[in-house]
């Protein structure tokens, strides 16, 4: 690992990130409405794309500005750069603690339902699509920022698991509101679940997806709008509070165990370390 001084001396890297951040934030959020949902373009997505454009592995020509040295130096900074975000995230949960405690057992227990992704997505990813270790990162959670932080911390974002979680994250950010709006509308009209249950399920730990999901639900059942928004909001805050810990202690270990059972055996164990 490089010394602090060396990493700070990678000034081209930090200057690039600074410029990227300024451009991305200056452009701001763009919502592209598509029928019942909308595709949400966030500054962090532009930042990711601009980072890719400056990456010599993606565009050979930028090698004069940034080389493999900067690419390597960028990797440990991913985890460090997410720390202020996670700190802010904690300060969003704290004030709502009373609301969460008051929310009741159904609301708390349905958090376990977030493990449904492992039951549905993991077997398909590994058995049908033949994915390798990236399936662990892709399917253990709904791949929002805290989940990325867990994977970055445990495997590094440069790992196969990191590629999996980033892939689902990017698709979720682009199409998540759209997918949740469709899901909520379909299930609301199916009559399979009570509307209260569907409202609670909307809280999956993403503000925009929760808004799209509860918006679509209240569109389908307008007379229950207030109740839907309150339940979805409380559930979303609860997911922020519990999701990180549910993922660390349950979801990720369970996914790992399942991979041991069903997964492709990698030829060399060091693959996971790259």
């Amino acid at each position: 690992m490089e010394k602090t001084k060396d990493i700070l001396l990678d000034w081209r890297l930090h200057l690039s990130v600074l410029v990227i951040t300024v451009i991305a934030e200056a452009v701001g959020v763009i919502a592209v409405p598509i029928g019942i949902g909308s595709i949400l373009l966030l500054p962090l997505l532009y930042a990711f794309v601009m980072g890719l454009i400056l990456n010599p592995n993606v565009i050979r020509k930028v090698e004069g500005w940034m080389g493999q040295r900067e690419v390597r130096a960028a990797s440990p900074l991913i985890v460090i750069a997410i720390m202020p975000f996670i700190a802010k995230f904690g300060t969003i949960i704290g004030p709502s603690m009373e609301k969460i405690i008051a929310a009741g057992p159904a609301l708390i227990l349905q958090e376990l339902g977030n493990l449904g992704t492992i039951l549905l997505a993991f077997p398909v990813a590994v058995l049908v699509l033949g994915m390798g270790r990236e399936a662990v990162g892709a399917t253990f959670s709904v791949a929002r920022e805290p989940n990325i932080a867990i994977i970055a911390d445990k495997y590094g974002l440069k790992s196969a698991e990191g590629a999996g979680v980033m892939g689902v994250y990017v698709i979720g950010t682009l199409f998540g509101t759209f997918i949740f709006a469709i899901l909520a509308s379909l299930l609301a009209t199916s009559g399979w679940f009570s509307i209260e249950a569907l409202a609670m399920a909307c809280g999956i730990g993403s503000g925009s997806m929760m808004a799209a999901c509860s918006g679509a639900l209240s569109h389908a059942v307008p007379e229950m709008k207030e109740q839907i928004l309150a339940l979805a909001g409380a559930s979303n805050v609860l997911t922020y509070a519990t999701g990180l810990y549910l993922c660390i202690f349950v979801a990720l270990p369970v996914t790992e165990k399942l991979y041991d059972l069903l997964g492709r055996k990698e030829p060399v164990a060091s693959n996971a370390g790259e």
Partner: protein
Amino acid sequence: MSTAELPVDYEANTKPDLGQHAVLLAAVSLIALVGNTVATDATVIQGLVGLAVLYVIAMVGLVLTHVVPINLPSVAWISLVGILATLPWTPGSAWVLDKVSHVNFLTLATPCLAYAGIAITRREISIAKSSGWKLFIVAVLVMTGTYVGSAIIADLFL
């Protein structure tokens, strides 16, 4: 070639060199400050104070990661410190909340994703090329599974 490629290095990630993190975290916070100034109506001073508070929360979390013998990721500690600092019954929580309110949540993730884009290796690009469509299918199933799973359990306990 580089030791950064070896799994043994993750040991170093979970037990961070605090001095190193303190310096890099400050550098990253400065980038976030510029981003926050562009993104929000907050003044530079408001953003600076807010980010300084978040910096302290993150550093306390890192120190806890370092000294507490439970093997939790640093992000879990940082999140916990942030929660504890802003609980309604924590003295001074209103002050903390007021200061960090000038820092935009999603803006803080922007520099991180820029680093992530720059850190992509050739190997990851080949993964994306060969399994991009698979990831799309998986992403749809992930969201469906999460949503339906929660709805089933909520329905059972209502």
